[in-house]
């Protein structure tokens, strides 16, 4: 029976080639979009699934409330470790203190390369289930031991056995390789941990770290935890939430709350707003999931519309089959098998299209998804997907077609009623409403990105490079290097900073100033900078002056940004002092010598944070910021700078970043959303147009006689074109009215998450509307003009 159904379905496909093509192409494109989105979603959800113990791993997080606003983050103070071990140790299988992932130089022989890695405590190999390919799993015993990943081992040692070899870290300290572990997969949160050195070394490496042992206020470290099997994340959190408050009365005013963020939330749900977990990437997962479902739905609507539009043609067959003994259920099965066949064919095409576009999609989505040929789950899901799509697309036509009365159909007087096209019209309106909403949504996303991109950054990011200077080799060399860079003609200015131009690495409090309100909990972004900072970055001084070698007292001077001045509530800031409020051994007061216009360091979507730029009297810099000579080409400048760099630091690799590129990264995630939604919008429009084209050709065919009669009565081609296009335009107008408010509502909500945001301008709606109308006319006109120019003698004769 089923074979017979398929046979007739196949012959029907071949007989109506255009119709079949539209149907299969539309469904295939919709399915391709859905498959790509599904692969993307599964890739997102697959994060950290390489860890069998994922459910027990967490990172220790902290809420702190400053001036009524609660901030949340993974930075925790060192004494927390001791408190947790002492009083709550039986809840944890592992507690692992860690530095922040950072690039460091590792040297072996002549090879000196930069790798990102962490300093961590012993036990990390067990917690992360590191697959040790060589050496001792528990080797991270003393402070000069280091674990390296396979890729690191290959880069440094090539084919030699790394175990027991000595590598030099940052050109200074010797470490002994105790084990090599298999690199963690790209989907792992620790994928860029290419070495793990001993935590104790980190503690001893810098004075402030050593001194942080008892400082509950110094939130500069991170801690990972694996909880015991007999506990839960919530249970442990409930126990440890007030540990900091209890241990440190000084911190109570910030209401610090310690909690565990489970590994499953790290990637997808790491956003907090005022102490409440608000989501994160999971929102995009939902967003694209919904878009995927809609695109598929649009494709199914095409199928439904085209099948029911052709019902007059199929009606006779239904009548005959009923008259020779078919039950209605059997007809329903037949039509469902037909849609099943079409869906299967479309799926095959969709798999082909997916393979074809997977690379481009990966580039767009910044992913490395491969087609899951060998995953049983994928094929199972595909099968379910095919069934669902068949039912979705096929059930209405099946029920509709099988309902025909054989007597009227066989009499040959069968005409579908006046209102039979109503469901079809509603579906078309639905399709176009979705398309219109997607167009508007995409335009708003693009507008918002442009808006943020055009926001003045407050400095000149073009022609500016930053060179990381983490190695101690750089200590005390900044002035010499600056002189040499300038003399070489490749740079016009250079300054050092303690953090990159596009990030805040340090936030500080503990200051007092005249007029500071009672109980004000201050919090400044803090950067140490050298002379020439203002000049090198191209900042704009709006009051006072920049740091200058002419004023020896500038070693205790500070420059504020405009926001900081407003934030502190001071007028005439120049010459005023900001003092350290610690009781013993306070740092010397900082004299305000200048105010600069706000410079965007963090997110381009949020207001600029109050910032202080203090003079770096101790040479604690992390970056050289070099303003390249605009008279020369960038490549020529870089060549010279590298040469000068190598002359001074022959053992260090020359690493640099373009500041404008670094700044551009801030837009990446939104641009990714924009790119993807653009693609899916175009797909949605294309699918809708395909359906419209099919309907238009059907209507033109149905009205052949009417058109012939009108022509003989003297109607012109343009009048006929109007006549045939009008109906479709009406539908599109209704779609605009339906789709626009939905899009407006959704996008207003979306924009809410950006404090610095564009308005939804009316031009967006005008563009979307005119776009939809033009596209509709183009789609419909081909058929309209074709039938309008047909010789009426032909069309009337065939009737």
């Amino acid at each position: 029976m089923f074979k017979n159904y398929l046979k007739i379905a196949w012959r029907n496909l071949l007989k109506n080639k255009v119709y079949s093509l539209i149907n299969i192409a539309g469904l295939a494109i919709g399915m391709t979009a859905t498959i790509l989105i599904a692969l993307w979603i599964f890739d997102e959800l697959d994060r950290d699934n390489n860890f069998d113990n994922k459910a027990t791993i967490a990172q220790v997080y902290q809420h702190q409330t400053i001036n009524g606003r609660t901030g949340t983050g993974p930075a925790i103070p060192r004494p927390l470790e001791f408190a947790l071990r002492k009083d709550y140790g039986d809840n944890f299988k592992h507690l692992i203190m860690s530095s922040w992932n950072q690039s460091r130089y590792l040297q072996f022989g002549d090879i000196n390369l930069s790798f990102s890695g962490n300093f961590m405590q012993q036990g990390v190999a067990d917690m992360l289930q590191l697959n040790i390919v060589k050496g001792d799993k528990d080797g991270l015993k003393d402070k000069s031991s280091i674990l390296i990943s396979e890729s690191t081992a290959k880069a440094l040692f090539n084919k030699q056995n790394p175990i027991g070899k000595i590598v030099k870290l940052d050109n200074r300290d010797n470490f002994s390789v105790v084990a090599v572990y298999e690199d963690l997969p790209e989907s792992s949160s620790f994928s860029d941990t290419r070495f793990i050195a001993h935590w104790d070394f980190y503690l001893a490496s810098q004075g402030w770290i050593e001194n942080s042992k008892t400082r509950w206020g110094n939130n500069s470290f991170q801690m990972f935890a694996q909880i015991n099997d007999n506990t839960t994340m919530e249970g442990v959190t409930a126990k440890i939430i007030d540990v900091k408050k209890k241990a440190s009365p000084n911190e109570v005013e910030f209401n610090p709350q310690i909690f565990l963020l489970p590994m499953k939330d790290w990637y997808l749900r790491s956003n907090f707003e005022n102490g409440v977990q608000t989501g994160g990437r999971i929102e995009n997962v939902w967003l694209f999931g919904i878009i995927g479902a809609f695109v598929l739905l649009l494709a199914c609507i095409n199928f439904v519309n085209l099948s029911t539009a052709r019902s007059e043609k199929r009606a006779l067959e239904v009548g005959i089959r009923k008259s020779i003994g078919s039950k209605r259920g059997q007809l329903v099965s037949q039509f469902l098998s037909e849609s099943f066949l079409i869906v299967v064919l479309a799926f095959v095409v969709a798999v082909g299209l997916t393979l074809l576009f997977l690379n481009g999609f990966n580039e767009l989505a910044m992913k490395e998804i491969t087609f899951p040929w060998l995953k049983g789950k994928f094929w199972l899901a595909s099968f379910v997907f095919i069934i669902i799509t068949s039912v979705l697309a096929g059930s209405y036509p099946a029920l509709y077609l099988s309902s025909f009365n054989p007597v009227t159909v066989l009499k040959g007087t069968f005409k579908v009623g006046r209102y039979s096209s109503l469901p079809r019209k509603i579906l078309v309106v639905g399709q176009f409403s979705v398309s219109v909403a997607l167009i508007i949504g995409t335009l708003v996303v693009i507008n918002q990105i442009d808006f943020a991109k055009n926001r003045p950054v407050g400095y000149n990011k073009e022609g500016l490079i930053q060179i990381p200077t983490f190695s101690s080799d750089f200590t005390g060399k900044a002035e010499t290097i600056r002189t040499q860079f300038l003399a070489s003609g490749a740079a016009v200015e250079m300054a050092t900073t303690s953090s990159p131009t596009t990030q805040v690495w340090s936030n500080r409090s503990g200051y007092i100033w005249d007029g500071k309100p009672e109980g004000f909990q201050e919090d400044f972004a803090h950067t140490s900078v050298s002379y020439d900072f203002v000049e090198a970055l191209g900042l704009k001084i709006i009051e006072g002056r920049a740091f200058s070698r002419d004023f020896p007292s500038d070693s205790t001077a500070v420059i504020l940004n405009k926001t900081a001045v407003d934030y502190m509530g001071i007028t005439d800031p120049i010459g005023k002092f900001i003092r350290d409020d610690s009781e013993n051994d306070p740092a010397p007061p900082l004299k305000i010598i200048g105010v600069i216009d706000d410079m965007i360091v963090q997110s381009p979507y949020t207001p600029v944070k109050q910032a202080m730029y203090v003079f770096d009297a101790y040479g604690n810099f992390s970056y050289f910021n070099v303003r390249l000579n605009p008279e020369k080409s960038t490549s020529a400048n870089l060549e010279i700078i590298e040469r000068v760099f190598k002359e001074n630091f022959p053992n260090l690799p020359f690493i640099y970043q373009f500041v404008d590129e670094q700044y551009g990264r801030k837009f990446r995630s939104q641009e990714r959303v924009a790119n993807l939604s653009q693609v899916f919008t175009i797909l949605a429009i294309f699918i809708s147009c395909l359906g419209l084209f099919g309907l238009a050709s059907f209507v033109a065919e149905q009205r052949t006689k009417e058109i012939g009669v009108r022509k003989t009565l003297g109607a012109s081609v343009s009048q006929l074109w109007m006549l045939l296009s009008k109906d479709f335009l009406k539908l599109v107008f209704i779609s605009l009215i339906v789709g626009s408010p939905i899009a407006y509502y959704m996008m207003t909500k979306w924009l809410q998450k950006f404090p610095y945001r564009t308005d939804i301008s009316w031009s967006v709606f005008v563009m979307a509307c005119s776009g939809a109308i033009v596209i509709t006319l183009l789609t419909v006109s081909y058929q309209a003009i074709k039938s309008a120019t047909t010789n009426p003698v032909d069309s009337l004769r065939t009737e």
Partner: protein
Amino acid sequence: MSTLVNIQQASRTIKSGGNSINLLDSIDLKVNEGDFISLMGPSGSGKSTLLNCIGMLDNFTEGNYTFLDEPVHKMKEKNRVKLYQEYIGFVFQAYHLIDELTVEENIETPLLYKNVKSKERKALVADMLDRFNIVGKKKLFPEQLSGGQQQLVGIARALVATPKLILADEPTGNLNSKQSQEIMELFAKLNNEGVTIIQATHSEENASYGSRIVNLLDGSIVKS
């Protein structure tokens, strides 16, 4: 001879724009097994409607209709289809073959709906092809056949499920006289073999092949 069809005081009324129209009015008709009845009457007299109602494609709106002692007027749709799959075959003026199926497949279709096993189906279809001398045409599609040949296939299709009753609505209406004669001779032969036939026709000549003529006018039987 047992009674196959027994219709008593059956009418069919439809509503059209506020008026009710009697398509069939108080019909009494008894058909015995082995009858060959010709329904005659002008266009619009209700021949086709009566055929459709007997064939259970349509329903009487009033009156009783028993088929092989089963009260059709009281049955549910599902059981009616079963009854009719089992005992009735239709032949149409416009043949109404399924264009997408070959001759062989067209004949096979009613058996599919009756869930006959594949082997048995093949055998029955082969019998039919043999009987109507169309073995050579079994792989052809309807559009490749002449009208007479198409009607032969139509009759083969109606007969393949070995029904007790064949309902033929102007079976020769689209055929030339030679083809008509062949088809009518075929019906007569089938009738001799025991198949009950009811045909609607305009042609006196065709009606003469039958055993009984029922005249219809404006939905009522004039004389029988």
